[in-house]
């Protein structure tokens, strides 16, 4: 179409920005094309066994199934809210599988796929969204910190934790997750400065899913996000966030460099949130259906499946087995979520402090006494 042609399509007001088209992204690291073709990248070689490839596929499918079940459970009133990861499975599984056991991940509130790779029970994550606790998993033993809702706050925690690893002489690193919107936060910039200044073993993993709720990426930045790293004095890499192999390779390399004392890396995983920001959101108000259709062609799971089939790494039995696993997980999530009961009401008092102050103890006792008056009532 020419610039003069009459059209009803929305015209991008900023040349080069606007709808996030994947073509013309020369800096994008890719190892598996949307068609499922394995390609090489000069800087990021990746050796994965057939077993690992099948494992990654299984992760992707199960994480998506978890996500779709959770969305359904929210619609049925079993969850107060759900933040869907649909479309971001490869970014999360690839990054999560790059972590070593002793590394520590610092998620936002959407990293269910990373939680999965860290062995966090999905029901612990769902209990947060059901409102029965504030995150029931153990961050220390899982190496997966609690979710952080305040945007960007965790990037500083990851940096401080990495500084602790550095002091301990541990050959470990932290992986700080953030979104494209978070890059606008002052605290994220402070984290980048700290990490750079102290050469902290932290990798910043930014999932650029193109929208901060409704605000598109051009409302956050006039330059590609990965280029910002240069201003802080460390490498920035843009990876195809829908390519689990590329994400795995790039994150693995960045974590290895961090553990090796080479300081931080900023990874921009270029991806797309296929669903709503959360179940409270209506993305049809701020983005076009055509954009969604375009990204569907880059589905992170379809390309792995195509690759596995074509290369003969997996057969129909394998795929059927993964589907059966997904069905079993879905059933466990459905029944398990409905059984997640709130803890004892007195828990609201019990962990506020390591040493409970007398006034809080008094309020707790008053609470117990007050509620004891109603015991047996209505029976």
């Amino acid at each position, binding site marked *: 179409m020419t610039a003069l042609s009459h059209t009803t399509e929305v015209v991008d007001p900023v040349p080069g920005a606007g709808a996030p088209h994947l073509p013309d992204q020369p800096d994008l690291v890719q190892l598996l094309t949307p068609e499922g073709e394995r390609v090489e990248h000069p800087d990021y070689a990746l050796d994965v066994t057939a077993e690992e490839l099948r494992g990654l596929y299984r992760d992707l499918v199960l994480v998506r199934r978890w996500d779709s079940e959770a969305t359904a459970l929210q619609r049925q009133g079993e969850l107060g809210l759900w933040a869907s990861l649909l479309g971001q499975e490869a970014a999360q599984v690839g990054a999560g599988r790059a972590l070593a056991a002793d590394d520590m991940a610092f998620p936002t509130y959407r990293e269910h796929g990373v939680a999965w790779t860290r062995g966090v029970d999905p029901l612990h994550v769902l209990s947060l969204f059901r409102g029965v606790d*504030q995150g*029931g998993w153990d*961050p220390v033993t899982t190496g997966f*910190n609690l979710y952080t809702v305040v945007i960007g706050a965790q990037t*500083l925690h990851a940096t*401080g934790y990495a*500084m602790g690893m550095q002091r301990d002489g541990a050959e470990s690193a932290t992986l700080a997750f953030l979104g494209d919107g978070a890059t606008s936060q002052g*605290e994220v910039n402070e984290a980048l400065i700290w990490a750079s200044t102290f050469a902290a073993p932290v990798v910043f993993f930014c999932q650029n899913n193109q929208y901060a709720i409704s605000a598109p990426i051009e409302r956050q930045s006039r330059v590609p996000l990965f280029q910002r790293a240069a201003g802080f004095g460390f490498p920035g890499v843009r990876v195809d966030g829908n390519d689990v192999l590329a994400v795995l390779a790039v994150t693995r390399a960045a974590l290895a460099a961090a553990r090796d004392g080479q300081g931080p890396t900023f990874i921009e995983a270029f991806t797309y949130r296929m669903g709503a920001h959360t179940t409270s959101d209506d993305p049809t108000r701020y983005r076009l259906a055509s954009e969604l259709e375009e990204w569907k062609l880059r589905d992170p799971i379809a390309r792995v499946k195509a690759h596995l089939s074509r290369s003969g790494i997996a057969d129909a039995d394998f795929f059927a087995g993964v589907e059966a696993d997904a069905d079993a997980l879905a059933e466990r999530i459905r029944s398990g979520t409905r059984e997640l009961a709130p803890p004892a009401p007195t828990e609201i008092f019990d962990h506020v402090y*390591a040493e409970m102050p007398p006034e809080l103890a008094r309020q707790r006792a008053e609470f117990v006494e007050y509620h004891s008056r109603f015991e047996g009532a209505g029976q």
Partner: protein
Amino acid sequence: MTETLTIGKALNLGLRRAMEDDAKVVLMGEDIGRLGGVFRITDGLQKDFGEDRVVDTPLAEAGILGTAVGLAMRGYRPVCEIQFDGFVFPAVNQIVTQVAKLHARSKGRLPMPIVVRIPFGGGIGAVEHHSESPEGYFVHTAGLKVVAISSPADAYWGIQQAVAHPDPIIFLEPKRRYWDKGEVDLDGAPAPLFASRVVRGGDDVTVLAYGPMVKTALQAAEAAAEEGRSLEVVDLRTLSPLDLEPVYASVRRTGRCVVVHEAPLTLGLGAEIAARVTETCFHSLEAPVLRVGGYDTPYPPSKLEEDYLPDLDRVLDAVDRALGF
């Protein structure tokens, strides 16, 4: 061994001892290394403990607190210095949404033994944002504990107790009293950290103060004594949790209570104390609990700060009003 020390030097010695006692203690802040801090509280510590234990940070308060959270998760005990009270606000997000909440959210799995040292209050002729009293914000936040020292002995022991404590503590240092001297028993048993203390006995009116206002309250008591009035002065010392049992005991005897602080009056700590004293000691009170505080204005230019800050005359005026009921 007893020594005469300023509050500033007592803090310095206390921090030194805390660092000797626990290798996990890390000091973090702006200009605290080679300079020793703008008030020299950390003087000489970087020289003796190294740059990893006394960290000169980039100039960003949220960064200081946010990385302290990560260090605490990793088993360290960060002691953060905020250069002046008015500069804590960029860090308030981390303090309120993270430091205060993570112990509860993690059911105790993530310890937050963080101390935030803040030189607070006015009276030093500074420019704006250097003379504020932000304690109310922190007292109102569950998950934090707040301490305000007023003497060299409490400075020396209090900072060590705060550093060793498992919960996050906002540690308020009365900056205009940094150079006041007092006796410190360096080996004796310290007073409990979360306890108020009667610092002068009296029978007619109970006067409560903390931080820089303790000295003002004592001066008022001295002046009142010359007029034959006996004021009992209580140093609150701990603002969260409040320790009001000694106050209730005092008020039951005196029947009158005046609360003094520099922070603006509305919803200041005095309001909370007045409510609690009234709830608890209602039948003993001969007069309403009165408050003397800063005004509900931004802290004024320094040429007017004497008009803003409670002084002994304003305390004595409140005492007169209490006795007039």
